[in-house]
């Protein structure tokens, strides 16, 4: 393994705040180790910018181990870059070569306005969650133990897989329609598969889909791009389940 660092050209979206126009800027970086993560590479760039008296590039990040969903970035035309099943903090520089030009853009969706540089406002997803992505539990002190209700293994597994969604928004960013249906369907499925989720099932799907449309996300046309780019491997099966839940609710509604 060579220790020689890579020389890179970065093209990065710079935008002062949500109201300004923004444009792509070009930066040169040298001697980047292939063992670095993508975010560490951006840290190096920011130190360089600070030393030169320039404004560092603003980007979202928190856990840096693929669990929080904060890091975003559209890298060389793909959400979270060219690797599969990972977030940007888990993307390694060994995926790139010496001399590469790397284009870095924020998530693009009408429902995700850019607040600064590479940071977008993803609170639309929070509002969808608040519209129904929960179960109401009575906390009176005599709450039933969840394990007292038998649940078949396959449903439990599928529910758990859906619950792995970290709300990163890569599905929206990558979808040609900026549709949030993979995210919303994961949040609906994790409850739809469990007995505890049945009580509010109808209201949940109605309210979450309504909020999703209100926020200005597009509609799914089944391209499958979201599933391919999702860091948690959330399956399209969830979208079909959400469609079923939605149809069921529309048919059974009493008004």
């Amino acid at each position, binding site marked *: 393994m060579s220790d020689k660092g890579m020389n890179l050209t970065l093209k990065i979206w710079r935008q002062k705040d949500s109201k300004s126009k923004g444009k792509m800027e070009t930066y040169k970086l040298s001697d980047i180790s292939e063992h670095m993560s993508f975010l560490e590479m951006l840290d190096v760039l920011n130190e360089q910018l600070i030393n030169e008296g320039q404004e560092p590039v603003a980007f979202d990040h928190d856990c840096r181990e693929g669990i929080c969903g904060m890091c975003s970035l559209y890298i*060389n035309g793909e959400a979270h870059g060219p690797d599969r099943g990972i977030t940007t903090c888990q993307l390694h520089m060994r995926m790139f070569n010496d001399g590469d030009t790397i*284009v870095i853009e924020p998530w693009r969706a*009408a429902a995700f306005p850019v607040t600064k540089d590479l940071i977008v406002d993803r609170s639309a997803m929070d509002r969808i969650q608040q519209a129904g992505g929960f179960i109401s539990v009575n906390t009176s002190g005599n709450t039933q133990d969840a394990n007292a209700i038998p649940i078949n293994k396959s449903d439990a597994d599928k529910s758990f897989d859906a619950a792995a969604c970290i709300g990163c928004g890569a599905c929206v960013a990558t979808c040609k329609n900026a549709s949030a249906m993979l995210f919303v369907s994961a949040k609906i499925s994790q409850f739809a598969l469990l007995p505890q989720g049945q009580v509010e099932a109808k209201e949940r799907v109605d309210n979450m889909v309504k909020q999703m449309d209100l926020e200005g996300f597009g509609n799914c*046309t089944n391209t499958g791009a979201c599933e*391919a780019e999702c860091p948690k491997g959330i399956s399209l099966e969830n979208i079909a*389940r959400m469609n*079923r839940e939605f149809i069921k609710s529309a048919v059974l509604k009493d008004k």
Partner: protein
Amino acid sequence: MALSGFFLLFFLLMHLSINLLSVFSEDAFNTVSHFMGYNPLIQFLMQPILIAGIIFHLVMGMVLEMKNRKARGVSYAKNNAAANSTWMSRNMIITGIMILLFLVAHMIDFWAHEIDYKYIAANAEDPTRYWEELHHKMGDPLHVGIYVVAFVFLSLHLMHGFQSAFQSVGFNHNKYTPAIKKLGTLYAILVPLGFIFVALFHFLTQSH
């Protein structure tokens, strides 16, 4: 979208079976065509339903496309869409509009002629004319050329559309979905190929 899609998929199968008759038997094709042309149930119930289905499908398709474009807002400077989705799935509006252009030509070609023959010129019923008319039309290389190209676009539309319609109505199953995808590809190849075959058959068996 999906319901009208399913309906059109079913209609297309029926249309193809009638076309295929013209390869095997002039008489059978004439009989069925005449029946389709003069049966009141077909003319005044099924035909309006079909037209409504097509119009619903294409209007909804265009509304969907416009909404979805608006939902992106600013487009990416660099987008590697081929890395995660097929060309067919991303260009349904393009293949759809090509089909629409063909349908307009097709309606002028066959349907307008029928309306003229039956209602404007008010000719008497002639249950033996259909095969000759079809055979004659398909003698023109331009006709056949447009026909073949249109069905290539239909094939691309259905490569994505067939399986997509199942997902849209909520049908996705570990065991059956792979089979549906295979069936969709088969349908998207064989049905348009069937139409192309009929057109080429008439083109290549012209007597002059």
